[in-house]
């Protein structure tokens, strides 16, 4: 993160200002990841396909959140709330998916084995 500068504005408050150069590096990485995800869509890895697409999307989102949205330089409080928001998403997905993937176990008892 050496490309970013922490400057003091005239009021004497710390307000991290991320440099344009750092933003440039992030957008380059985002473009690379975009082409990677398009490329991977044409490679058939069977049931892994959605997971690869998701993993790449998550890394793009992390880059945007941390640098574009300044969360890397934010207070611990902000970071906790950002993490909390995404964690709650996992609760929503996780508990719903538990139901849908385990329904087969009842209609098809062999699935238990």
């Amino acid at each position, binding site marked *: 993160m050496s490309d970013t500068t922490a400057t003091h504005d005239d009021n004497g408050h710390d307000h991290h200002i991320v440099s344009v150069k750092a933003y440039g590096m992030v957008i380059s990485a985002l473009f690379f990841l975009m082409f990677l995800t398009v490329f991977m869509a044409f490679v058939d890895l069977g049931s892994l396909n959605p997971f690869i697409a998701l993993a790449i999307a998550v890394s793009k989102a992390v880059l945007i959140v941390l640098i574009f949205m300044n969360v890397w330089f934010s207070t611990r409080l902000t970071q906790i709330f950002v993490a909390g928001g995404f964690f709650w998403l996992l*609760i929503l997905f996780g508990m719903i998916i538990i*139901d849908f993937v385990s329904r087969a176990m*009842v209609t098809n008892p062999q699935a238990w084995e």
Partner: protein
Amino acid sequence: MHTIAEAQRSAVFPEVNYLSARHTVASWLFTVDHKRIAMLYLVTISIMFALGGSFAALIRLELLTPAGDLLDSDTYNKVFTLHGVIMIFFFLIPSVPATIGNFLIPLMIGCKDLAFPRINLLSYYLYLLGATFAIIVLVRGGVDTGWTFYTPYSSTYAQTEVFYATMAAFAAGFSSILTGLNFIVTIHKMRAPGMSWFRMPLFVWAHYATSLIQILGTPVVAITLVLLATERIWGVGIFNPNIGGDPVLFQHLFWFYSHPAVYVMILPGMGVISEVITCFSRKRIFGYTFVAFSSLAIAVIGFLVWGHHMYVSGQSVFAGIVFSFITFLVAVPSAIKVFNWTATLYKGEITFEAPMIYAFGFMGLFLVGGLTGILLGSMGADVHFHDTYFVVAHFHYVMVGGMVMAFMCGLHFWWPKMTGRMYNETLGQISGILVFVGFNLTFMPQFLVGYLGMPRRYHVYSEEWQMLNVMSTLGATILGLGYILPAIYFPWSLFKGAPAGDNPWDAKGLEWETTSPPPTFNFDEENMPVVTEEAYAYVIERNTLGAR
């Protein structure tokens, strides 16, 4: 009662306060003062409560006899749906947070206003928009899906005003999100010097936990209602089984919010009780940190239990087991609170003012509601109880016996602070006892009739259940009287009540250190409060516990 008489002897009504600041209608409708917005909310939700209550009265009247003689089936469906929608989205969810919480949180933590006063006003108008949609539903002939809007009935088959009903809930939902957002930022950033997290009143902790639920849960039901509304407009949608959609998915998304929402409907009430119990037993709360963290635990664990509404709806057995197990876990923090309140009472100097009578009522009724919840949370037992009056009685014990009792309790406790006037204490005590007796007479028979198998949402039933239903209707009449009394003596006190003085209950907390009613910016601006002691630093005068 010594404290009331002493404090009031010399009480005068302060000349400068938020009520007298300006008198125009516009100064109320466009106010950004959290206290005035709280009063706007109080008036509006009282009207909605009366509306929802009148539907309840219709239901109880119809159920007086086993035959369907007052309402036909379709009308009955609409009446119980409107009762549910109005009471849940327009009374219970905003009840304590938007009125008492809105009024008190800045006062309790010692700041001049909520962090975003204009967003606070916006939240009120969103609520009003939602209420308008609810009235539109009413005028256009009602809605008959039940307050849960289950698909595919609501999306495909219902011929009633489902669209406007979803819009009503949607707008009310965003109002609730904005209230929660405001509270969390205010509690984090606006506390007075010395007001550390563990010096905050437990009322504030409870609202913090509530706000987390409002922010993280409500948007999911909002988008679900959008999906439902588009499905109705479009003719097909993602819950439509004809094209492979799964109606049970709707229930998942709906309960992801609506189960945590029942904690929105109880946590603020628990906060009220923590304040009132300590004040009227003149004792510190027993186990402050446990009560504080149990609020957060309820909020978090409450997000993991929603599937217990869906044991018989086609959800997988495995998921049901998981949800059932976590449901038992959520009973632990709830029980911690009840135990700690009880321990707080132990050897306290207990007095029985009206708020305390309501608080005792809360503790008993919430206990019954909570314990029957454990029965319903067990997967096997729920197959028997599901969709019977046992469920109806259970959630009324928690919602009405819990939250409405707590709302009345808080209203009596802080009414002197909010208006600067005392209500008639004797009438207050009578009302508290009437509500407690009437409530139990209404809903205890419903446990029995539900256990015997009477299904909910039917207006015709077997004759052998009539006795219990008559008892229930009789109780509802007494309950109604108990609610009508405050509707008379509260407004009366505004004009004729004695000036309350700054601290009529001799209570602890920053809100009692300013005038009643407070000035527009809550405190003397040259002398903003600084906190030097922990919450509930009550000292018992009778020296039974040894010197403190």
